[in-house]
Structures are given as structure tokens and as C-alpha cells.
């Protein structure tokens, strides 16, 4: 459904016209012609993205859509085959000094230094980023408090639950007060209480003008959190724009999403007619 992406350009042009074409706000992330191939499989097939600054941005798509690959390349953890990536106006691959100090990252499926305690991990990460020790300790204490980890701050991360891991990872990503925060599946496997805590912290953080980019396949969550959405499927961007633009006429983001990724007319299980029948 390419017309929806086109719709965005039109709307944007209209907005630009309304604000007198003022383009002084540079995008948080600009991606042009990004490709990544693993052997025979094309994970990311030439995507263009422009994510506005100061927004809560959701990158949504089914499993295997290329979300993690894209986020890894944008954060400098995976080398793209082709393409140009700018974060906060600086090229990720030619100007790492500027980019790495401005971003916070919570990857999915990578370990932490698990034989450190939660507090030690934050102390290590903050000092590695060159923050003064006292400041690191102060921020760590506050983050541990807000994220409800103060009680287990001296436990080793290896003994943390999934939700605690996500929270300590988030704290480590926030510690240096980055301009742009990239979170890969931050709510995956997280209990509702922790999810609410994470959500509160992120909302407070974006209100300060920072940008959050997070990937997810839970549409309800994206719909309630984000004001900007990019939909990915099979390594391509199917649509990007404000929540309203991407949703279009569909009753919910979920419906719009299913339509976009072409999963609308699937068999709804009529063949399982025995299920729930007489036992």
C-alpha cells in the first residue's frame, strides 16, 4: 500500500506550507537507501526513513520484518551493506564521536555485563561514557528508585527477571541523558507493573523534547504511546507518518497494520471445526 506513504509527503508539504516552509527542526534520524543482506536473505531492502525529533516513535512490524536489523544499523552496532544514516544531523558511520554521545540504546537479544550488580552496571556504563563519578552515582540512585530497582540494586544482573533486565538496560541507556533513545522491544516479556513503570519514565523523557524510537509488534501499545509510526514488513517500510495518517480509515492501528502487511484475509481457523465441539 504505497499510497499511504505518499499521503505522508503530501500532508507534510501541507504542514510545511502552513508553517511557512520552516525546516529548522532537523529530524532525529534520517535513513536513505539502507540495505542489509545476510547470505541469501535480504533483511532490509533499501529503506528510507525520516523520524522527527521530540516525538515518541514506534517502529512496528511482524517478526522477521527487519526491525532489529534496522535499529542495529542505525545505532552503529551492525554495518549496513549500503545506505546513509544520520542521527541528530551526524553520520553514524563517519562521525561516531558525535553520534555515540547523543544516543542511548537498549538492544534486544544481547547480553548485559551480567556478573555486575545492577548498581555496578550503571556505575560502569556511566563512567565508560566519561561522566564524572559522583554524577553517575547520583543519577544511578535516582534511576534505580524511579524504576523500582532499588531493592535489588546489589543483586547480580544474571539473577534478574526479564522485566528487571529491561529496566536496568533502560536505566543504562538513559544515564547520559541522550538526545535520541533507541529501544528494541522494550516491553517484550515484561510484566504489566514494570511495563507501566517503563512507560512513565519514557513519557516523562519525551516531554523534555527528547526522541524515543522503539520497536514492537504490540499494536495497542504503540497506538496508546506513540505519536509517530513507521510500519515495516519484509525489509521494507510500508508506511510512515503520524498515528492518524498511518491508521487512515481503519478502525484501529491493528487493522491498518494487518492490511499494510497483507495479513488481512487469512483463514480464521474454520478448518479447526472440531475445536470446542462435543467432547
Amino acid at each position, binding site marked *: 500500500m504505497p499510497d499511504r506513504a505518499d499521503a505522508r509527503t503530501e500532508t507534510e508539504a501541507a504542514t510545511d506550507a502552513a508553517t511557512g516552509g520552516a525546516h529548522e527542526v532537523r529530524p532525529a534520524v534520517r535513513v536513505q537507501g539502507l540495505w542489509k543482506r545476510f547470505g541469501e536473505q535480504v533483511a532490509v531492502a533499501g529503506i528510507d526513513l525520516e523520524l522527527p525529533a521530540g516525538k515518541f516513535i514506534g517502529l512496528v512490524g511482524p517478526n522477521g520484518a527487519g526491525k532489529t536489523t534496522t535499529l542495529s544499523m542505525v545505532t552503529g552496532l551492525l554495518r549496513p551493506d549500503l545506505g546513509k544514516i544520520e542521527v541528530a544531523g551526524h553520520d553514524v558511520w563517519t562521525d561516531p*564521536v558525535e553520534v555515540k554521545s547523543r544516543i542511548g540504546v537498549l538492544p534486544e537479544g544481547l547480553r548485559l555485563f*551480567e556478573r555486575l550488580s545492577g548498581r555496578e552496571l550503571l556505575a560502569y556504563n556511566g*563512567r*565508560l*561514557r*566519561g561522566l564524572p563519578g559522583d554524577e553517575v552515582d547520583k543519577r544511578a540512585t535516582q534511576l534505580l528508585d524511579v524504576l523500582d530497582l532499588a*531493592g535489588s540494586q546489589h543483586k547480580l544482573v544474571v539473577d534478574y527477571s526479564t522485566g528487571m533486565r529491561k529496566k536496568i538496560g533502560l536505566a543504562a541507556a538513559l544515564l547520559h541523558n541522550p538526545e535520541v533513545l533507541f529501544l528494541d522491544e522494550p516491553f517484550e516479556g515484561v510484566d504489566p507493573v514494570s511495563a507501566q513503570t517503563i512507560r512513565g519514565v519514557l513519557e516523562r523523557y519525551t516531554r523534555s523534547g527528547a526522541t524515543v524510537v522503539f520497536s514492537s509488534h504490540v499494536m495497542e501499545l504503540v497506538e496508546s504511546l506513540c505519536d509517530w509510526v513507521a510500519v515495516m514488513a519484509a525489509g521494507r517500510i510500508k508506511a510512515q507518518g503520524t498515528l492518524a495518517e498511518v491508521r487512515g480509515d481503519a478502525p484501529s492501528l491493528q487493522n491498518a497494520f494487518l492490511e499494510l502487511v497483507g495479513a488481512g484475509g487469512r483463514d480464521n481457523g474454520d478448518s479447526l471445526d472440531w475445536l470446542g465441539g462435543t467432547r
Partner: protein
Amino acid sequence: MSVLDAPVSAAAPVAPTTGLTPVFVRLKLALLRNGLRQSTGRKAAFIASLVVSLLLAAGQVLGLVLLRGNEHAGTVVVLLTGVVALGWAVLPLFFPSGDDTLDPTRLVMLPLRPEPLIRALLVSSMIGIGPLFTLCLVVGSAIALAHGAAGVVFGVLAVPLTMLLCVALSRAVATANVRLLNSRKGRDLAVLSGLVIAVGIQFVNFGAQRLGQAGGLSTLDPAASVVRWLPGASAVASVDAASDGAYGAAVAQLLITVGALVALMWMWQRSLVKLMTAPDGSTLAAAEPTREKASGRGGLSALLPEGRTATVMQRSLRYVARDPKTKAAWVTALAVGAIVPLLNALQGTGSVYFACFAAGMLGMQMYNQFGQDTSAFWMVALTISSPRDAYVELRARALVLLLLTLPFTLLVCGVTAAMIGDWRSLPGALGLSFALLGSMLATGAVASALFPYSIPQEGAFKNVVPGQGGLAWISIFGGMLAAGLLSAPVIVPVIWMHVTDHHDALWLMVPGGLVYGALIGWAGLRIAAGRTANRLPEILAAVSKG
């Protein structure tokens, strides 16, 4: 009345328990077969270990049969059986996955009664290479000891009893410790087992040599007279006693084994019931209160200055103390690095230059630095944005290595020289150690940048993930060869001074080796830093496979 209406207590125990044992035996055989079907590598490993075990077992049976009639036969056989029984008890702690084919926790959902379950597990545990090997040994032991009708009778009883005892012992220990084995601490313990074996081999080797020198097998007699009355070996000892006509002792020894077997079965059943009906470890761990510890910069961290160097050093030191894989590597290096020169010196065959082995073993810890981080390397990668950052990171890791290695090298060199009494060569050995250490640091840093590989976190003997073995060999052996060549500017003058009898000048090698080692180490870190900064995504990908 349909099946569903029947009282539960009447229906449940009858159906599943009849013929449970054959079901388990078939299950075990099927699991074995399917495990082999999965990969040709596994099949080859199984067949190889089967052949080796059978050969060993055959050799042992032959040896035991030949021992028949020897005056020390009783001593040797009893001790051997005792060691095997001990092995059965200890093995499940170190190799928890060794027999997960019959992990009782997988049967929790099935309606099984404890008694038939125990029986079935016991019988099916008898299938495998280990039990076959033990059977050969026990049969050989009985043949070696049995004389006369009474001996044969006791032998026939002792063989199955010992087998049952070994298997029951192993299963009881494993079941009682299943919580520990499935917890992080247990997995850490399993990782450390490699260490026990690496160091143990050195001592067994040494012990065997000592035994050959001193009074022979008769030195073992006092030990055997105690082991005779311990459950693992007492059944076999009863054969010896019966053959000698000491029927009272024989019956008592046999009864000890029977009693131990009954006790073990009871304990096994109890822990099995508890295991299958009580909440699992994760629930208990979550309910545990967290330990409180003094927060902030206490202890060592207070001594270190701020900045990347101190931060990285602190993290590395914590990993040496806390991460089982890192700890095992370090302790093995320290132990083997000390044992080889010192034991050789003790036997009078050594040279002070053997002490350089310590520097070499510890220098190897510099290899694959980022693989030791596992995929947590992303945290490091995100903070390295220039070759300077990478240099400071690598230098800090090298400093940790030196912090532990330099005093250790001095100690090993000093003690070796003292034991041999060759103080004249000490400066040469020291200079050589310094140069070797510097070269190992240099090549290790470069290899870390160019040939990183993943270290699997589970298992004691897996230090490379499948597919990266070649990389690891190139890295370590290429690096060691290069380090040897790089040390040549110090090796050559040391040899020259010895050959031309210029021993007085050897002291020159201490500052010489120190300066040369520092220079080559610095150059290696510089080269590695640029490569590391350029290859961060590639390194991360390489170390994230474990």
C-alpha cells in the same frame, strides 16, 4: 458407568504403573538413538568413546584377571572400586547434562507413583557407556578376587549389588542437588569442573610417579583396609574376605552394601517426591530477600582514579572473581603455570627457564578479550568512537593482566630458582618472562581485534562455539608463534650468554626484557586499537554467537 465416573483412586495407579520399567528402558534407548541421529559429529563422538571405553574396560578386565593371585590384588581391587563409586557420586555434579535423558522434572505432569518410578529409573540408568564400563570393571574385580565356592557365591552377589549401588548413588546425589544444578550457582560449578580436571591431571601424574618410586603397592594397604568397609567397595571386599575364609567379615561387608543401597533408594525416593511436588527453584529464588551490601565506591574502587582505565580495570577484576568462565581460565592458567615449573623442579628435572611457562600461560588470557565480554560487548562498542578510546580500553585490560601476572611471574621464577638452587640463571628467566609477557600482550591484543570468537557460557569444556574453532586456533597458535618470534631479541642474547659462559652479564636481561616487553606491548596495543575501532560491528557479530 463410564471411565470418567470411576473413582480416581481406583483407576489411576493401575494403568500407568504396570510395565513402567520396559517403557523407560525403551525411552532411554530411543533417546540415545535419536541423539545420535541428530548429527554425524555426535555419532562419531559416541562411537569413539564407546570404542575407547570398551578397549579400556577390556584392558582393565585383562589386568584384573592377571592380578589374580597377586598378594596386593585385594588392595588394588578394593581401591579401584572405591574410586569408581566415588566417580559415580561426583560426576553428576560436574556433568549435570550427562544424563538429562531421564530428568525426573520432565515427568512431573505424568501420574506416576514413586516406587515404580524409582525402579524404572534405576533400571534404565543401567543403560549406557558408563554402566557398561563399570560392569566390566566389577566383573573383573570379582574374577581377580574369587577363590573357592564361597568366593564365587559372594562374587555373584557382589557384582549386581555394586552396580546398583553405583547407579543409585549417582541418581540420589543428582536428584538431591537438582535445585543446585539447575540454578546459576550449579551451572557455575559445572563450568569450574574443567579446572578441577586440568589441575587434577597434574597431581595424578605426580602421584603416580611418586608411587613408582616409594615402596610400591604396599603403601596403599592402610588406605585399602579402611575403604574395605565403605559401601562403594565393601561388596567387592566381601569376595576377598570370603575367599580367605573370613565369612563373618564377608557377610558384614555385603550387608553394609545392601544397607547403603536401601538407604540410598529411600533418600532418592524422598528427594524425588519432594522435587516433583514442591514449587520449583525460580519461585523460591524470587521470594528470597536480597542481600544488602555497602553501596558506593568502597574497597578497591576507592583506590582507582576516575576515567575509563579504572572503570574497565574494575570491571575486569570483578569478572575474574565472579564469572565462572573467566575465573576457570585464570585459575587454570595460574595453577598450570605454577605446577609445571615447580613439579619439574621438585623432581630435579627442571630448569629456571621453565618458569617462563607461567608468563606464557597468563599471557594467553589477553587473547580474545572481547569474546570474554560475550555479546555484552555492545556496551563497550557504544562507548568507543575513536582509536584513542579503543587504546585506553585495551590498555586497561592489559593492566589488569599485568597486575595479576607480574607478581606471579616474579614469585614462580624466584621459587623455581630457589628449589633448583640455580640463582645465576634467574635474571635470564626474568628477562625472558618479561619479553614473553609483552609479546603475548601485543599479539593477544591484535588477535582480539582481528580474530574475535564467541565463548559459550555453558559447559566446562566448550570454549569455542561450533564453526569458530578454526578462528580460535589461528588466533591462539598464530599468536603464540608470533609472540615467540617477537621475543627473539631477548631469547637470542640469553642463549648466547649461556653458550659463551657470560653468566655475569645475564642481569642485563632484566632491564632489557622489561623495556623490550613494555615497548612491544605498547606497539601491539597501538596497532590493535586502530583495528578495534574500525571493526566494532564485526567484533560484536563474532562474539555474539555463544
